[in-house]
């Protein structure tokens, strides 16, 4: 191959071919007939046209008038309102790292969210959130909590009695009981608070597991009592 291309004859012939292929003379007919004269061909386009081409003509200004202004106001108002409506669904955001001022408004929105109940007659049944089950649950829980509260009260009095009885016990155990008592009360309070909050907010799995703990609590305190009795 190399041998051939190096030969002067072949080179000359290649050049001639290239010249013939490129020139206007390549056409077998008179292209003037098409209206394409020499030098009147527009420049060849290479590649796609630019993303932001220069515009030769400036755009005409927008219509302005009372109608347009009013529609503009309507549009902006509409957008604002739609964003506040419960129909605007916010993605479940992860807990913000820093508490922000705007969160106050977010809470309002979430409340609105609760308020929207679509007409289920016009929607497929499968879209209905399974609320009934969840609504039924908390009531049952409430009872259990109450019972456990009574239990704890009974427990505390019992503990007090035991404390009085077992005055001779070493101080260490006394401290412990006190600590436990404090813990119990605290826990109880927290539980009550959290429960109220959950009642308003949406139920989810998190709460369920929490209430299970609440039930455990009663049993746990029983254990405590037993342990106490052994001292």
């Amino acid at each position, binding site marked *: 191959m190399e041998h051939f291309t190096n030969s002067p004859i072949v080179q000359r012939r290649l050049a001639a071919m290239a010249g013939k292929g490129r020139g206007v003379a390549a*056409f077998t007919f008179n292209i003037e007939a*098409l209206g394409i004269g020499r030098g009147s061909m527009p420049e060849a386009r290479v590649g796609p046209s630019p993303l932001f081409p220069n515009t030769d003509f400036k755009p005409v200004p927008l219509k302005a008038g009372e109608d347009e202004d009013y529609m503009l106001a309507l549009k902006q108002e509409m957008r604002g309102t739609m*964003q506040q409506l419960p*129909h605007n669904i916010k*993605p479940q955001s992860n807990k913000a790292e820093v508490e922000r001022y705007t969160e106050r408004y977010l809470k309002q929105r979430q409340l609105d969210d609760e308020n929207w109940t679509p007409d289920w007659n*016009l*929607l497929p*049944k*499968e879209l*209905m959130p399974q609320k009934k089950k969840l609504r039924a649950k908390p009531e049952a829980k409430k009872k259990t909590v109450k019972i456990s509260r009574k239990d704890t009260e009974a427990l505390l009095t019992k503990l007090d009695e035991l404390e009085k009885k077992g005055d001779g016990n070493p101080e260490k155990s006394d401290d412990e009981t006190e600590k436990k008592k404090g813990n119990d009360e605290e826990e109880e309070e927290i539980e009550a608070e959290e429960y109220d909050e959950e009642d308003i907010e949406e139920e989810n799995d998190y709460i369920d597991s929490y209430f299970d703990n609440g039930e455990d609590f009663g049993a746990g305190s029983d254990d405590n009592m037993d342990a106490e009795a052994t001292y």
Partner: protein
Amino acid sequence: MTAQEVRLCGLLLREHFGEVVEKVGTHLLKGGAQNLRTIIHETGISLDLVKKSLCVLVQHGACVFRSGRKGAGSPAEYQTCCDRILRILRYPRYIYTAKTLYGDTGELIIEELLQRGHMTMSGTIKTVADRLTQNMEEGRSMDYSEVSSAFFRLVETHFLQRCPPLAGAEPKDSSTPAAPAPPGTPAAPVSTAPPTPESFPDCYKVPHVTLVGRGKRQLASEDGEDQRNAKKAKMDSQTHGDEGICWQVNFERFHLHFRDQAIISAVANKLDQTSSEIVRTMLRMSEVTTSPTATCTKPLSANEIFRSLPTSYNIPRPILDQYLTLLIDDPMEFVGKAGESGGGMYVVNMHRALANLARATLESVVQERFGSRSARIFRLLLRKRHLEQKQVEDFAMIPAKEAKDMLYTLLSQNLVQLQEIPKTPDYAPSRTFYLYTVNQLPTARMLLQNCYKTVANLVERRLFESKESKRLLEKSQRIEAILASLQASGAEPEQLTEVEEMITAPEKQQLDALRLHINKLDSAENQVDETIFLLESYINSTASTS
């Protein structure tokens, strides 16, 4: 639907219903009808949110569902309608039209219904009355009966319609979407077409509603809380006899109105005010008798037109005849003659008018983008259909070199097409005619897509602008809130100015500039939509005639 439409739909959904709905909506647009399980699986959004999003979409009519397409008992499938989502762009125009036709009450009724998708009549009336009362001076209030009469009028003129009731063939076990159809069950052919509202006989029947009272004014209410108050009022647990009957805005009716308005204003621009009033009268007379998709109105005799002309116009009979002849001779062909009886029978050519308006739009687009001389070539091709390059140069009376340049630019933009007609089957260039032509319909379609793209770009730009100065916007909002609360508590003027000065002068300048930009972008969106409407109506009209 095209990529541009999907993009614009996504942006509109995000702006109005949030990102989750956008995700679900665009997924449905791209993937066609799907059931709940597939949506959850493919979008990776939690069940709860997908359910809510679908509820929102269905509530706003942007999504239809039907079950049993793949045999009885198969799960319900959801499908979004691109056209319906794009209507969001036109909301301001609907509301404004309602205002011009039916005053503030009509405006608020349409606005409420658009914001909430669909509502019961009693709910709408209460909310609207409350909102109107809120804006009245102290001690006055809006009577429910006034609002309901406006509501009646809107229904009477078909601007409002009932939501079609749910198809009765809802399978009982739709709560378990994954339940497979037992093998061997004959696939019951359920009608696959979604029910159209018009097919429902009671579409425009207003139920008897017992609603007595007046709009309530919320005491000690802040401006921002109007919405919530209105909603609370809506929650009043009384029955009014129309539970379960929801109403929605009839977009088609609005579009007919827009179409008529476009024709009237075009006549007014082309000829004069008087002839536009004549056309307006003709359109009003045939509003009831002509079907929405008819190519032209029912023929009206000159006598009838004369009798129906409002006396305030003061057009004597001979002048009317002259005007009618003038309208017929006009090249835009808005009005045509259908016969000689009764002093001449006249029709309004709806489809012709739309085609001509669309053509004028195309011409003006070419003119504004490529100059008046390119527009001359474009018009020439529209009129002469097919022309060779040499002929274009000669007829347009433009120097050959420039004409070629313009023609090729138009060709590269797809506004002009090239048709090859070979004399011999070998397509040899020397024995081939090269004819340039303009196809109006495909060009209109392309322009429509460009419009969608334009609006999407405008929205994107607006989002970018407001994102850039988010901090500034938040600050100004906060300061406004503080100012409002201070004013409410009766603070000293010095205090107020002190708070006002928290925004520095350069910041204020920046804010003003931003507001100007956003207003311009918003306004542009509204105005591009007018072009979109015209092109859409033209394209739809050609679909119904062929």
